[in-house]
């Protein structure tokens, strides 16, 4: 049986996953125009420059929206339902799709402050940035 979905790490997002594995949340910033962006891309969404750097961010933010998912697309996740899939707005002004973990995830509300933690996966080298209620 297929396992839980894992990222296929590639040259564009290698630094993102390397940061996560070390407990650091990193975003791309454009050296040409300063735009901070997520998800990782080959070029800047502001000016199309390929001169991008990786910067660590606070990992603090607030919940923009969420859903308690009971039927995951990949059924390997069924042992974890309901899964609180959320969009978190980071203090730095970028939104991420992520997951809220913890036994109190049924108390998540819009605007609730959250902070990043890094979750183990079935691959010892890959950790997922997820969030907990702060």
């Amino acid at each position, binding site marked *: 049986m297929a396992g*839980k*979905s*894992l*990222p*296929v*790490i590639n040259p564009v*997002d290698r630094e993102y996953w390397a940061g996560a594995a070390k407990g650091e949340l990193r975003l791309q910033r454009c050296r040409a125009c300063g*735009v*901070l*962006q*997520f*998800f990782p891309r080959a070029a800047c*969404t*502001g000016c199309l420059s390929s001169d991008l750097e990786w910067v660590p961010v606070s990992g603090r933010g607030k919940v*923009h*929206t*969420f*859903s*308690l*998912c*009971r*039927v*995951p*697309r*990949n059924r390997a*996740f069924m042992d*974890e*339902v*309901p*899964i609180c*899939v*959320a*969009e978190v*707005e980071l203090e730095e*002004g*970028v*939104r*991420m*799709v*992520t*997951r809220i973990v913890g036994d109190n995830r049924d108390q998540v509300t*819009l605007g609730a402050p959250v902070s990043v933690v890094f979750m183990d*996966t079935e691959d010892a080298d890959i950790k*997922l940035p*997820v969030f907990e209620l702060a």
Partner: protein
Amino acid sequence: MLRKKVCLVGYGSTEYSRKSDRPLLSYYAEAMQNAMAQTGITKKEINGFSMVTQASPDYSPYVAEQLGLELDWVLNGDCGGAGAVCAIRRAADAIEAGYLDLAFIVAGNAFDKNVAHQRVLEYQRANYVDVYGYGGPNTLFALVQRRHMEEYGTTLEQIGKIAVSQRHNAGPNPQALLRAPMTIEDYLNSRLISDPIRLFDCVMPCSGGECVVVASEERAKQITDKPVYLVTDAEKIGFQASNMLPDKTVTGMSVVGQHLFSEMSRDNIDVLAIYDDYPIAVMMQLEDLGYCAKGQGGPFVDDHDLTFAGDFPVNTGGGEISVGQAGLAGGMLHVVEALRQLRGEAGERQVKAAETALVTGIGWLSYARNLNTTAALILERRS
């Protein structure tokens, strides 16, 4: 921009099924045959062909070879749920330019294990969304609907009224897979899938096919005494794509609507065919098209009768949530229903004096945003 000399002259549908093992191309072929029978067009006359597809190895020239088509124009329509509307726009461009005078546009779906139609997740969804155990489009629309409910006070009853009205509309539609009456209680009590999205918000995947025939005005007059004209059309792709703090409840249809309704008053539309992968998507489009202010979709739905006999007929055949979603034929289904209404061929569900229709198409949700593709057509029957 107003179109002048492009018509939709016919259509063909197949039956829909949840269990068939027919191959996809047999649905394409049957939908085309039905359109040929309706229009009297022979296979040799077809010089333009487009198939609307998402992720498949079947490039359109290969499919043309399979179907034995010799063509002057071919197009692989790739805008997801907006693909049908977008392909009709591209065909209209080519017809106006004089490259061809007749295009058959098909879409469909099959559970055909012999062909690799397995949909590939686009890269950003695979690496940054799927890894969290999300529930596909059900979860992505749940994230949008939660925002709409919290920001504007939209209720489940208001959203559910769209589903209930469309099920009523499906009652007299023999093509619909879900025709049994449904109450608002049935809707509210349906199983949570990815809250607040529940079972009766979701489309049912099925197999089937649809075909639409686009022609120059000159050809149209030879083919039918019921030509339906393409009045105007527009699209917006990647709305808010470079905004890292996008407005989660607004779609590109807000821009599309401005284009369309600068040419014709929205109050002159008799029939609305609004792409309905989820009821919340219908509500957001009505807002963005300017039928009410942003966030007022709930009260708007309360104030109107959305059934085929009502003052604001939406998805008069039941829409995708009642008929079934045969892949990207879901977008074509709305075009075909509009043509049935405008040609007076909708039977028991016929809207009286239907002369104009709005057809929308929308496609997948961008990362942390709203719809990526949005497109729409205004059609008019002229005798």
